[in-house]
């Protein structure tokens, strides 16, 4: 029994932290821009495959390749904002379909260049091997990733609470018109947010790349998790996102280690979200502001 509880606790922490890293960006976009960024899925394969392209095809070393990838991600985010989000801010249907199409285009382009059977392996392993906590053995990479996730989330929260830019972004999340009246440059902060939220996703993807499966369609599953977390947490509230990530992590851990049916992981999280939505349609926390 104690072994089960240990497994549950450790994996709730590890999975919850990783899910937090994956969904933090999605939640912030939901909170600030008040849209569902259905193009979010493209960020994950671009992180992996563009880094791989710089490494393998252009012969760069790992660190410059990662910086190159970050630059490419920023350019794509900027273009998506200017070309789609700004254009269709009042026409959500067109925007959601266009964002989905962009994901499909990027995924298919990656699949064309690097088909699924092409072996892609990024040497982004911080520490090799496994760690034993009590009677639980867990990948050290994932453990370090979880700690980084918590630190990064803390930094994000501090940024939003303690800096003037963070205050302005929170103001936008509460009222666009109100923030325009007090002189906040909404558009430049939108662009900043679009780029800023890429950071946790890119870090998260690079951390999990050596441990979990990588393929051009990998983003869909992560976006799926991010949507679940964002909705469960209350569309764009950071407190809710943190709670929801660990709650979904706990459900997944229960399915794996208590029920012993990893097949039901995604389904169980979905059922949980649906039940919560029926009981509390606004999610765990009110989505009135970012914090």
């Amino acid at each position, binding site marked *: 029994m104690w072994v089960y509880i240990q497994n549950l606790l450790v994996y709730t922490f590890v999975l919850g932290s990783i899910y937090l890293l994956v969904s933090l960006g999605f939640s912030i976009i939901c909170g600030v821009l*008040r849209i569902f960024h259905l193009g979010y899925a493209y960020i994950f394969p671009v992180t992996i495959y563009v880094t791989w392209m710089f490494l393998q095809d252009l012969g760069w070393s790992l660190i410059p390749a990662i910086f190159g990838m970050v630059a490419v991600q920023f350019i794509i985010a900027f273009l998506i904002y200017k070309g789609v989000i700004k254009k269709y801010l009042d026409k959500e249907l067109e925007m*959601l379909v266009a964002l989905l199409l962009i994901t499909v*285009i990027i995924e*298919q382009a990656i699949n064309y260049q690097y088909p699924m059977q092409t072996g892609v392996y990024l040497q982004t392993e911080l520490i090799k091997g496994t760690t034993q906590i009590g009677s639980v053995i867990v990948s050290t990479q994932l453990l370090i990733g979880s700690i980084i996730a918590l630190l990064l989330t803390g930094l994000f929260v501090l940024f939003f609470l303690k800096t003037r830019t963070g205050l302005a972004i929170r103001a936008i999340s509460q009222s666009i018109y109100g923030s325009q009246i007090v002189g906040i440059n909404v558009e430049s902060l939108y662009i900043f947010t679009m780029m800023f939220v890429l950071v946790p996703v890119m870090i998260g993807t690079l951390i999990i790349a050596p441990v979990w499966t990588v393929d051009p369609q990998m983003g869909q599953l992560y976006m799926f998790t991010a949507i679940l977390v964002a909705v469960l947490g209350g569309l764009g509230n950071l407190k809710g996102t943190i709670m929801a990530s660990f709650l979904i992590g706990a459900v997944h851990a229960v399915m794996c280690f208590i029920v012993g049916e990893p097949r039901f992981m995604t389904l169980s999280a*979905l059922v949980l979200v649906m039940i919560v939505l029926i009981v509390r349609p606004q999610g765990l926390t009110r989505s009135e502001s970012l914090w």
Partner: protein
Amino acid sequence: MVDIELKRDRVVIRLKDKKWEWMIEPRYWRNSILWVALLLVFPAVAYFISPGLINTMISANLLAAIALPMQLMTLGTGRVNFGPNFFVGVGGYAAALLSIAYGWGPLATLPFAILITLFAALVFSPLVVVARGLYYVLLSLLLPFVFFEVTIIYTDIFKGDTGLFGIKPLLDLGNARINFLVIAYISIVIMVLFLLVINKVVKSRYGLIMAAINDDEEVAHGIGVNINKVKILSFVFSAGMIGVAGWFYAHYFSSFAGQTYLTFTFMLKIFLAMMIGGRTQVFGCVVGGYFVAFLEMILIRTMGPMQAVVFPVILIILLFALPEGLFGIYRKRRYREYFPTIHVRR
């Protein structure tokens, strides 16, 4: 006596006290019978020129047959359902499983496929009452994925990874080409039937009530419309129609896989058929369905594996370039449009 008179822009035909007018310029040809006749001629011509085109035409008809009820669902519920392919999956799996388990043919599975889809829609119909805006988008988006997960988990029943095989074919006349030809006509009949029914509903008093719900639910409720009844009925009725398309897919290909119908790619095709055709036009769905299916076929034939990238690129360009869709080019007058917006932003 029939009296035919040629005027500057039209031909006027008079028979006793009755009068018919025919606009000479093709862009004013509003007569649906003419377009249906064109559709009926197409498979017969393709049969002799390029039989492969019949296959594309069937795909186009089916896309239109899903986009049309999807349009009605969107109009009647005042919400945009992002998972219409869920009902394709339910109808298709119902037909496939019944056909494989009991050896039933398409005629025997059809009523059950419709009933099971209607039941599934009824179970999920409270969504149109409790969820709105982005929450509805999300929940409807998740439905096909949940179903796909279920097909993977219970792979011994649904064969989620490989797909179900051995479903009784839609027709077996002994000649593959004639089979295709007759199936093409069946698909046209289904699509045209949907078109007629939906057009009739939209133009009826019921359509006006739907438009009122679309404009403002609270106001519609205030003026005495039973909004929940209308929303649930539109949702369930349209879902049943989409289920028929699923039944058709299952028997047409004699196989059915969630991997094909319950994914983003298929959902996107339905949306594009609806939006590129003309998102607020019932007839636009047919134009969109044909455009998407034929564009995909042309790209596959000319570009090979590169088409997977070029196809969505062309579609996104058209999405930007044609805000009113292809049907918007054809029509000359902008009508009052009823289409729900996903209100989220404050």
